[in-house]
């Protein structure tokens, strides 16, 4: 698959992530109070919301999930963040779409990377370069 085809597929997926209610422009100043509060509501506060029934599944953690958990705990142990800051970032700051769509530990590792960049422990360019390096290493194996 060519890069342009690949990006075209990605753009189609992004199109499907649009929320059911959205303003066609981003300069609407007509938000009502309740609408404003709904936008400000923290995504993790799902208690009492209607949903479809969920099938219970017994599933063991995968290795990347265990690695993520340990990485986040070690970062806390070394004082980089607290559990509450991790919850704020992983359950809240990433927004509704990612909260509802990403795997549970995917949200954890996203928030760890974001925290390290926000606090200048690493730079975003270092992170990007490292990501490309590791990805190409796996692809060449």
């Amino acid at each position, binding site marked *: 698959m060519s890069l342009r085809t690949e990006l075209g597929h990605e753009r189609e997926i992004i199109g499907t992530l649009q929320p059911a209610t959205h303003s066609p422009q981003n300069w609407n100043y007509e938000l009502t109070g309740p609408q404003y509060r709904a936008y400000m509501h*923290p995504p993790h*506060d799902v*208690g*009492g919301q209607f949903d479809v029934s969920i099938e219970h599944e017994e599933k063991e953690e995968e290795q990347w999930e265990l690695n993520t958990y340990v990485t986040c705990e070690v970062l806390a142990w070394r004082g980089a*963040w607290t559990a*509450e*800051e991790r*919850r*704020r970032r992983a359950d*809240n700051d990433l927004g509704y779409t990612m909260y509802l769509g990403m795997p549970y530990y995917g949200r954890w590792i996203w928030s760890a990377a974001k925290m390290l960049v926000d606090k200048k422990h690493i730079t975003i360019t270092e992170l990007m370069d490292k990501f490309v390096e590791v990805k190409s290493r796996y692809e060449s194996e």
Partner: protein
Amino acid sequence: MNQSKVMEQNQNNIGVLEEHSLGVKPRFKVGDRVQIRNMPYFFYTRSQMWARGVQGSIAALTYPDLVPEDEAFNVDGRVEQYYIVRFRQKDLWPGYPFDNDTIQTESPERWLEPVETK
């Protein structure tokens, strides 16, 4: 929280501190009628929407601890009393069928406001 404090079991089988530490003076006592405040949403809170505006009662005082909203932004200076608040399920969910069922949730003091009993 101060782990060296002696824990005791109260009638609700909840571990509570024998004495209050960190200079915190609790605003509420067991049995007080309270409701969960409808605070504004600013970037982070763990106060649950399902309990807001519903009247319940204080079932136990747990411990003084950091406020989660502050702690989430690395502000660790302020400590507040935490409470176990008990609600009737019927008061929370429309059409709930059983009169006696209750549910308990934990709240720091700032999420609560007193209910005037007539």
